[in-house]
């Protein structure tokens, strides 16, 4: 179990939300959307990897 991963994702989320706020307040709404989407993709990649590992574990444990 990797606790660092939780902190990493929380940090990415906080940074992305701060950048999004700063960019939208300075009138660059399209850039804020791009930053939010980029952050989402980065986090999604990590989560998908973990989900894949979990499914493999389930498959091996329950003899699929």
């Amino acid at each position, binding site marked *: *179990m*990797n*606790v660092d*991963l*939780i*902190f990493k*994702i*929380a940090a*990415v*989320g*906080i940074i*992305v*939300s701060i950048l*999004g*706020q700063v960019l939208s307040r300075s009138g660059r709404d399209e850039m804020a959307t791009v930053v*939010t989407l980029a*952050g*989402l993709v980065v*986090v*999604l990649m*990590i*989560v998908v990897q*973990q*989900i894949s*590992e*979990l*499914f493999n*574990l*389930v*498959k091996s*444990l*329950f*003899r*699929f």
Partner: protein
Amino acid sequence: MEAFFKAAAIGMICCIFSLVLQRSSREQAMLLNTLSVTMLLASFLQFSKPVMDTMHQLESQIGLESSLISPVYKCLGIGIVSQTASGICKDAGSSAVSESIRMLGTAAGLYCTSPLFLAVLSLVKDLMGG
């Protein structure tokens, strides 16, 4: 036992971060929740591994056919995955998707156990002398 306390700590830390992130970006909070659920479930499965090994040993000692007990394990796995996926979807606010996953899990469980029903039926037929 250390793994259990670690898992509990992960759950609590994730809840706090999720509350912080929910104000600004709900999708990041949802992804964080998904990650923590995945990790906790993986931890649960690691705990279950010795139990499953014991079950396999019992199975071999009794001399039970693998084809008879295998659908039961598969059903258990399908149940765990469908329940978790459905819960995640419900948390994200998609009740319809959640219910669909539940129904899909039920159908997959029935699909896996249908050979078992046929085996029982043929056994009953044999006992009846038919």
